[in-house]
C-alpha cells in the first residue's frame, strides 16, 4: 500500500511543476459577488459580459447567491486563487471583512452600498462604495408618493420596510423616512414617536398618526411566507389604499388583487424595481378594477452602478487609484441616483434602455469618459459629477432613445 501512495504523490508533484496550460494573463480577472440570483441578475450579467468586458479588457467570474460573510471571503479567496485582481461586491453586510480580505490579497475592492464601513476606509485596495444615493432615494420616494397622493383625497399607507430596521440597508431606511415625511407634510400629521423610533420598531404594527382617517402600517422583515401572512390583516381591513414595497412587490400582488376585488377599491402600488420585463408587465397589466397593477416605481439603475464599479477598478489597475479616493485620501462613497417613474408612459421609454449596445445608459463609448487611459483627469469629482448628470432620466431618454 505504501508504495502506491508514494508513486501517486510524486506524480502529482512533477505534473504540478510542469505548467501544461499557461493561463492567458492579458485579461484582468474580476470577481462579482452577487447577493441574490434573480431575473435582474441575469440582465446585469449580460451587461458585464457583452458591454463592460470587451471595453475594459476584463473577464468576470460570477458567484452564486452569497448570504453570509464566510461565503463572501471564500469567494474572494477562490477568485484570488484564479488570479483575479478586483472584486465587485453586492453583499453589503460583509463589505468590511470583504475589503480586508481583498486588501490582504492585494485585490481592488468596491461595494454597491449606500453607507461606508468606517473601519476599513483607509485600506489601500478599498475603493469604497458606489450605491444608491440615500437622499436621491428619498427624493425619488417623495416624488412617487406625491404622484399617488396628488388627487388630494385622504390616503392610508401600508408599507413593507424589509431591512430598514437598524439601517441594515440604508436605502430602505431613507425610503421609509421619505414616505413618513411626505405623509406628515401632506396631511400635517403629528407622530407620537420620532420617525427614527417608528422605523426601528421591529414588530409589525400601526403608526400613531394623530389623525383618525389617515392610517400608516409598517411591516419589517424579509419578504417570505410570514410577512405575506402579516400584511393580510391590515390589507383586508380595506383601510389602506396605498401599498409601498422597498424591495420585492411581486409576491404581494395576488393578495392585493384579492382585496381590491372583495372591497371594490383600488390599491395603488409604489415600489423599488429594476429595469426588466417584470416592471413593464407591472405597468401594462390591469388589476381587477382596470387600473395598472403598478402605479409608481423608483428604479434602481443597476447597470449604472456596475459600470462605475468596473471603471473604478480599471482606473485603479492603471495607476488611477489615488485619484478615486475622496478629499482626505479615504475610500470614496459614490452615489447613484435612482430614477423616479410616476407612470406607465414614462416607463415605456425607460423600458427601451439597457437592451442592446446603443441603448445602454453607459455603453462602451460612454465608458471612455470614465477610463483614465482615455480621459486622464477621470477622478473622484468627475465620477460624482457624471453621476449627478445621470440623475436626470429624461435627458438620458432623449439622448439614448432616437
Amino acid at each position, binding site marked *: 500500500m505504501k508504495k502506491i501512495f508514494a508513486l501517486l504523490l510524486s506524480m502529482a508533484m512533477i505534473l504540478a511543476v510542469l505548467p501544461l496550460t499557461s493561463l492567458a494573463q492579458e485579461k484582468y480577472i474580476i470577481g462579482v459577488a452577487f447577493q441574490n*440570483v434573480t*431575473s435582474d441578475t441575469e440582465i446585469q450579467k449580460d451587461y458585464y459580459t457583452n458591454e463592460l468586458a470587451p471595453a475594459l479588457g476584463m473577464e468576470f467570474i460570477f458567484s452564486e447567491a452569497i448570504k453570509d460573510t464566510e461565503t463572501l471571503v471564500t469567494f474572494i479567496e477562490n477568485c484570488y486563487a484564479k488570479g483575479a485582481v478586483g472584486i465587485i461586491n453586492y453583499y453589503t453586510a460583509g463589505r468590511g471583512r470583504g475589503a480586508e480580505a481583498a486588501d490582504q490579497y492585494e485585490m481592488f475592492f468596491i461595494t454597491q452600498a449606500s453607507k461606508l464601513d468606517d473601519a476599513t476606509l483607509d485600506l489601500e485596495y478599498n475603493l469604497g462604495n458606489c450605491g444608491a444615493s440615500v437622499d436621491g432615494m428619498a427624493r425619488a420616494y417623495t416624488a412617487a408618493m406625491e404622484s399617488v397622493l396628488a388627487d388630494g383625497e385622504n390616503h392610508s399607507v401600508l408599507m413593507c420596510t424589509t431591512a430598514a430596521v437598524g439601517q441594515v440597508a440604508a436605502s430602505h431606511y431613507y425610503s421609509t423616512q421619505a414616505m413618513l415625511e411626505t405623509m406628515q407634510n401632506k396631511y400635517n400629521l403629528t407622530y407620537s414617536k420620532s420617525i427614527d423610533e417608528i422605523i426601528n420598531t421591529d414588530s409589525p404594527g400601526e403608526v400613531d398618526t394623530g389623525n383618525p382617517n389617515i392610517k400608516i402600517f409598517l411591516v419589517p422583515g424579509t419578504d417570505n411566507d410570514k410577512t405575506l*401572512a402579516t400584511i393580510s390583516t391590515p390589507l383586508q*381591513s380595506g383601510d389602506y389604499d396605498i401599498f409601498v414595497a422597498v424591495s420585492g412587490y411581486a*409576491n404581494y400582488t*395576488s393578495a392585493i388583487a384579492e382585496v381590491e376585488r*372583495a372591497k371594490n377599491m383600488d390599491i395603488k402600488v409604489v415600489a423599488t424595481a429594476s429595469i426588466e420585463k*417584470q416592471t413593464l408587465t*407591472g405597468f401594462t397589466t390591469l388589476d381587477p378594477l382596470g387600473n395598472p397593477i403598478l402605479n409608481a416605481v423608483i428604479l434602481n439603475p443597476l447597470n449604472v452602478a456596475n459600470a462605475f464599479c468596473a471603471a473604478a477598478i480599471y482606473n485603479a489597475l492603471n495607476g488611477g487609484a489615488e485619484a478615486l479616493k475622496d478629499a482626505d485620501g479615504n475610500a470614496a462613497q459614490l452615489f447613484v441616483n435612482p430614477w423616479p417613474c410616476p407612470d406607465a408612459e414614462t416607463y415605456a421609454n425607460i423600458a427601451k434602455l439597457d437592451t442592446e449596445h446603443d441603448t445602454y445608459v453607459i455603453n462602451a463609448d460612454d465608458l471612455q469618459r470614465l477610463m483614465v487611459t482615455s480621459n486622464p483627469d477621470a477622478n473622484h469629482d468627475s465620477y460624482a459629477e457624471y453621476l449627478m448628470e445621470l440623475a436626470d432620466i429624461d435627458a438620458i431618454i432623449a439622448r439614448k432613445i432616437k
Partner: protein
Amino acid sequence: MNRRIKNTLITLAFPVLMFLIMEAVCLIAAGRHVIDFSTNLDLVNLVRNTGIACAITYALSFNLTSGRLDLSLGAQRLAGTVIGSNIALALGLSGVWLLLFSLTFGLVFGLVVGLVFVWARVPPMVLGIGMGLILESVVYVTSGGVGLNLFGVQGITILSEAYFTILVVAILLVVVLYLVAYTKFGYQMRAIQGSQRIAQNSGINIFRHAVLCYTFAGGLVGVAGILDAAYKTQMAVTSGNASSGPVVSNTFPMFLGIFLGRWSNQAVGILVATLTLRIFAMGLAKLQLSEAMSNVVNMFLYLAFLVYLANENYFKKRKAWADRLVEVQEKKSKLGIPVEA
C-alpha cells in the same frame, strides 16, 4: 355504525377545537378574529397554505413511514414546478396546464431520485443531500438562473382561487386515499413498513416499490410548488439545498396526521392535521407575533407532541406494573412468605 360516527367526530374535533381556542386567544389578546370573513383573503390563504402543506406532507409520508427522510423533496418541488411551468409557458399554455406540467415533471424527478436510490443503494439521508444539490443546479441551468416568473402571466389567477385549490386538495386526498388504502401499492407499503425481510420473502419487489414511493412523492411536491408559485407569481432558484427547509418542518403535520389516522386513515388524518396546524399558524400571525416567536411556539408544540407520542402507553405500563405487584402479594401470601408493608 356508531364506531364510524364516533371516529369521524373525533377526527373533526381537532380542527374545530383548534379554531375555537385560537379564536378565543385572538379575540382576547388582539381583538381580531382568527379568520376575518369580510374578505375571503384569510380563507384563500388558509385553503392555499393547507393545500400546499398537505401535498408536501403526503409526499413525506410515502418515504418517511418506510424510514427514509428524503431531503431532496424541496429540490424536487423546485425542479418540478420551475422546469415544468417554464416548458408549459414556452408552449404557450397557461392556467391549469401549469399544474399538470408541474405534476408531470415532479413525477419525473421523483422517478429519477427513486432510480438512483435503487441503483446506488446509498443511505436515504446521503441520497437526499446529493440529489438535492444536483436538482437545484439543474434548475439553475435550465431556467438560466431566473427560476419561474409568472408575474403578469394571464390565466394563472385560477391557480390561487380558493375553490380551485379546494378542488385540487380534494383530488389529492382521493388519489392518496386510493393509493394507500385500495391498491396493491398501499398494502405492500404497510407490509414493508412492518418488515422488509418478510415482505421480500413473500415475493414483494421492494425495489420497484421504493421507486414508486419516490415518484408519487415527487408528483405531490410538484403540485405543492405550482400552487405556491402561482400565488406569489414567482419561484426563485435556491442553492445549498436550502429548498429542503420547508420540507423538514412538515414532519410535524405528518406525525400528527399518522396519529389522527387511527380514527380514520392516514390520508384523511394528514389532511386534518395540516388544517389544524395551519389554523394555529394563522392565529399566531393574527397575534402579530414576530416570525421568530411563532417558530419557537410551533416547535414547543411539536416537541410536546413527540414526547406524548413516545410515551403514550406510559400510564398503561405503570398500571400493568401495579397489577403485577398485586399478583406478587397474592402469591407470597399463598406461599406463606411474609409480605413486606
